[in-house]
């Protein structure tokens, strides 16, 4: 048996056999009758086999590095015995040299890259090994072949196959061809990028009032930010389309379509010049309102040049109210917008949907900012639920009418209200209840007057969808109109729900103040007053003597006490006082802590149901 690299010779000749036998006998000096193991030898790349004698062991062979061994055509993975009848084949794992080349386009087809990977070829030869009973056949690399270089023509052909026809950089291809590195990445074609478009934008000619600035100086200069009729309040910069580019495949690459943003307007504003300019149609305060969409409006402003007294009387106004003097004993102001008093508020009541700012003192009065948010929130919830149910009802009507087994002859005669009635009776039984609840809120005495009037829509809903009302519906269009009206009303409510109203006063005594946002006392003190803020109470420069402070986010006070001061901390609210005197009572739910001694930098916090009082420093 003779094996050569990648060659198989089935059996050795008689001459070879006797030669081998003689050699082994000479080496081991063993007589023919002795027992000895078989052996294998690698000599000059050939495998030589010597069978065992007597009770000697058969030789073992196993594949080492860069070698595969097959015995009788089966590849061996572990050391294997061979005998003189086996056909043994040894293969060296030679590697052919190769070059792979690929053209890749970027997703936007603006660039084409050439990727080249070169693999060197390797030729192996078996390492000689002396005769042994167990051998591991190993091959080593004797020749390393360099891969064939890439050619310019090949690259051009590959580009053509990929459809690249534009912006081909011949210099870059030449450099890549001459590059001897094993891996090459080169940009070999570049398209023409499109010119980006510019989205539309809106410039407002007024700054939304910065609440923090106002709070710092509520005295202000008496200047009221306003626009007069005909004044421009906003200008739209129209969208500018981009220019198309060309991809490396020669196709045009379209520029992104610019986004158009319309100026959304409400009362007191009119659009001119194809909707690119917003102009005030009345004098008043320009405002941006709304949660997701911002609507521009000009709130009417009612200005009282002096005091609110017997001559002026109580004021109820749907816009902003500005009092240049004081609000005197027993008078009240209700405003759909904000209230600003440049003087004092004495034994009076101020209710505003927006902010309340009092430049001087508030004595024995009641202030409520954002108080209308509560009914608006209820109405918003009702409208949203009703809108969803009505949309579902309309969809159900369409589905029923499309059924093969359903005939519509009676609907043509008696109107589609019959189907609406069936749906409300059996599938949408909650709709009338929603409407009754809505009517209850809309017609509530306290909500009448200066919130938007929703009684008409509530009445129409009731007429069409409650009791026998549906039977009066002739066509489902009537439901569609109701849905549209409901959507319009919802848009109005949405703005009011999102608004946060604050109170800023200089000094407050024996009064009650409630705000859906912050309450800020900028002057000397809050004396025996009840302050409730849905966000923060800030009395940075003054003292709190007596009264009750309650906030949802935080209370910051310079001096707390003396006098019996009650602090009501809601969940996660933090109280910080630079100074606190004994007798201050801090509550959180049923947890009560009383400050027993003079404290500096007091901090209290309601966290996870626990009231914690400590020194901040």
């Amino acid at each position, binding site marked *: 048996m003779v094996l050569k690299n990648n060659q198989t010779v089935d059996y050795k000749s008689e001459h070879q056999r006797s030669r081998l036998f003689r050699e082994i006998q000479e080496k081991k000096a063993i007589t023919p009758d002795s027992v000895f193991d078989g052996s294998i030898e690698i000599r000059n790349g050939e495998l030589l086999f010597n069978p065992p004698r007597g009770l000697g062991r058969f030789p073992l062979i196993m594949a080492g590095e860069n070698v595969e061994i097959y015995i009788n055509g089966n590849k061996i993975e572990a050391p294997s015995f061979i005998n003189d009848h086996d056909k043994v084949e040894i293969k060296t794992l030679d590697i052919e040299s190769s070059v792979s080349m690929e053209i890749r386009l970027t997703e936007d087809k603006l660039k084409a890259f050439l990727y080249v990977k070169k693999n060197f070829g390797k030729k192996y030869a078996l390492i000689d090994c002396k005769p042994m009973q167990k051998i591991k056949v190993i091959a080593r690399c004797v020749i390393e072949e360099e891969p064939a270089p890439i050619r310019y023509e090949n690259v051009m052909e590959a580009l053509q196959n990929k459809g690249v026809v534009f912006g081909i950089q011949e210099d870059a291809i030449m450099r890549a061809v001459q590059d001897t590195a094993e891996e090459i990445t080169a940009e070999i074609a570049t398209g023409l990028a499109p010119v980006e478009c510019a989205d539309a934008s809106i410039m407002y000619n007024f700054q939304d009032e910065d609440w923090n600035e106002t709070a710092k100086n509520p005295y202000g200069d008496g200047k009221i930010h306003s626009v007069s009729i005909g004044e421009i309040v906003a200008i739209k910069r129209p969208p500018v389309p981009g220019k198309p580019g060309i991809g490396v495949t020669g196709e045009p690459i379209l520029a992104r379509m610019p986004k158009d943003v319309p100026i959304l307007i409400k009362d007191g504003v009119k659009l001119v010049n194809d909707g690119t300019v917003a102009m005030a149609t009345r004098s008043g305060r320009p405002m941006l309102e709304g949660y997701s969409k911002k609507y521009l409006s000009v709130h009417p402003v009612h200005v009282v040049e002096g005091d609110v007294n017997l001559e002026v009387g109580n004021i109820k106004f749907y816009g902003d109210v500005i009092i240049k003097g004081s609000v005197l004993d027993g008078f009240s102001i209700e405003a759909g917008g904000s209230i600003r008093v440049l003087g004092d508020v004495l034994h009076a009541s101020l209710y505003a949907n927006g902010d309340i700012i009092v430049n001087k003192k508030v004595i024995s009065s009641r202030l409520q900012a954002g108080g209308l948010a509560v009914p608006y929130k209820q109405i918003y919830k009702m409208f949203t639920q009703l809108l969803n149910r009505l949309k579902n009802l309309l969809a159900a009507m369409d589905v029923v009418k499309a059924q093969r087994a359903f005939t*519509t002859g009676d609907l043509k005669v008696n109107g589609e209200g019959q189907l609406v009635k069936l749906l409300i009776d059996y*599938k949408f039984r909650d709709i009338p209840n929603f409407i009754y609840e809505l009517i209850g809120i809309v017609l509530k005495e306290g909500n009448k007057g200066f919130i938007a009037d929703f009684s008409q829509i509530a009445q129409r809903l009731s007429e069409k969808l409650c009791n026998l009302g549906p039977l009066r519906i002739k066509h489902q269009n009537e439901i569609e109109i109701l849905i549209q009206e409901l959507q319009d009303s919802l848009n109005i409510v949405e703005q009011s729900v999102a608004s946060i109203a604050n109170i800023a006063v200089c000094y407050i005594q024996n009064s009650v103040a409630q705000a859906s946002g912050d309450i800020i006392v900028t002057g000397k003190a809050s004396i025996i007053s009840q302050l409730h803020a849905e966000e923060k109470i800030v009395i940075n420069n003054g003292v709190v003597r007596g009264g009750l402070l309650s906030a949802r986010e935080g209370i910051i006070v310079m001096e707390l006490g003396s006098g019996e001061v009650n602090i009501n901390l809601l969940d996660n609210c933090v109280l910080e006082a630079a100074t606190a005197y004994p007798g201050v009572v801090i509550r959180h739910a049923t947890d009560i802590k009383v400050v027993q001694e003079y404290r500096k930098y007091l901090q209290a916090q309601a966290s996870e149901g626990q009231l914690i009082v400590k020194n901040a420093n």
Partner: protein
Amino acid sequence: MPLEIESRIEKDMMIQKMSGVLDISTVELLHNSINYLCEITKVIYDFDNIKFIDSTGVGGIASVIRECQKNKVTIKINNISPEVFEVLDILGLPEIFGEETFEVKQI
């Protein structure tokens, strides 16, 4: 197509086999079918041959079920074609009167 009702009584049970269209022109027959229940404690409507229905017909079925339930008579509507049942289902009748009242024809 008119509505035909084939009625028979077995002990205290009345079986009404209905064929045709249940719509505004025939719903009166459905109403009349429960006029004389007397000793009857169970009514079974076989809707095997009801192929079409309109909203008046649906209202009629609801009214008959309500009337039976008021008089403590068990009512069942059997062999409803899947198409007709789809209409009843969208309108919410099984949800209100109980799924067990309606039995869809097995095809």
